[in-house]
């Protein structure tokens, strides 16, 4: 389900509106993922604490949204643009790709929650496609 020009425009427009809250979105989305899908906690056993809104979640949420920002900037070729991140996830982090969908859903819940007027059905479908393609880009080097 590749991105049309309309999808790319919608994603960029939405990102422009939420970018300055990206860190907060990331932290909130991660907190929700860890609570709603507790199996995802298994990837963070090395964290000193896992509190909603705690330092670990804030720091990591910022990192994740940095990746999303990168993906938006490389939206015309996500596979190439996410190559390094894919290698990181494939060889070091080894996150099961099924989890990308879970975080993507939580990101969308947070955006709907914080930006209800901007997250129209049209923006929703474009972002859902985009995050799906980001997940594909991240899984590229897995095998």
């Amino acid at each position, binding site marked *: 389900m590749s991105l049309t020009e309309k999808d790319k425009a919608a994603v960029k427009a939405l990102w422009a509106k939420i970018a300055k809250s990206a860190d907060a979105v990331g932290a*909130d989305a991660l907190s*929700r993922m860890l609570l*709603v899908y507790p199996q995802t906690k298994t990837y963070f056993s090395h964290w000193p604490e896992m509190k909603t809104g705690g330092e670990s979640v804030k720091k990591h949420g910022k990192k994740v949204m940095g990746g999303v920002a990168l993906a938006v900037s490389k939206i015309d070729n996500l596979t190439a643009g996410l190559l390094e991140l894919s290698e990181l996830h494939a060889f070091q982090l080894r996150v099961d790709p099924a989890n990308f969908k879970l975080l993507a859903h939580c990101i969308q*819940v947070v955006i709907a*929650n914080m930006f209800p007027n901007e997250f129209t*059905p049209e923006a*929703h479908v474009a972002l859902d496609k985009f995050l799906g393609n980001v997940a594909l880009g991240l899984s590229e080097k897995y095998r």
Partner: protein
Amino acid sequence: MVTWTDFERATIQDIFSKIDYDVVGSAALSRCLIVYPWTQRYFGSFGNLYNAAAISSNPRVAAHGRVVLGGLEKALQNMDDIKQAFADLSVLHSEKLQVDPDNFKLLADCLTIVVASQLGKSFTPEVHAAFAKFLAVVVAALRKQYH
């Protein structure tokens, strides 16, 4: 056997007392048909589903969204045995409507997103988790009678 904490029971009751069933039902079903267009396969008789605007203003979609929320309310009233309460609904979806049960999760995700957009700050991660658990139980109950 699903066990609910006091927090979960209270939270889910609270969510349903706050949401407008017509608004949420219509918005969630519309989003499902727009974001996951293959779900339109089940609504061939609904008329114009040609684009997002048509779907969002389609009166049959709105009416059916209300039916779905009615089903969720039934689950709310039978929280201690949703599986039993939904046995007939599960048979209906499996044998008469022949809905691929993977679609239930798609609608559940859209419901979560719509409720998140309606409840603002009160839709905390803990509230979200309780609602997600409720929907997961409903989805499992709807899948139960498929064979």
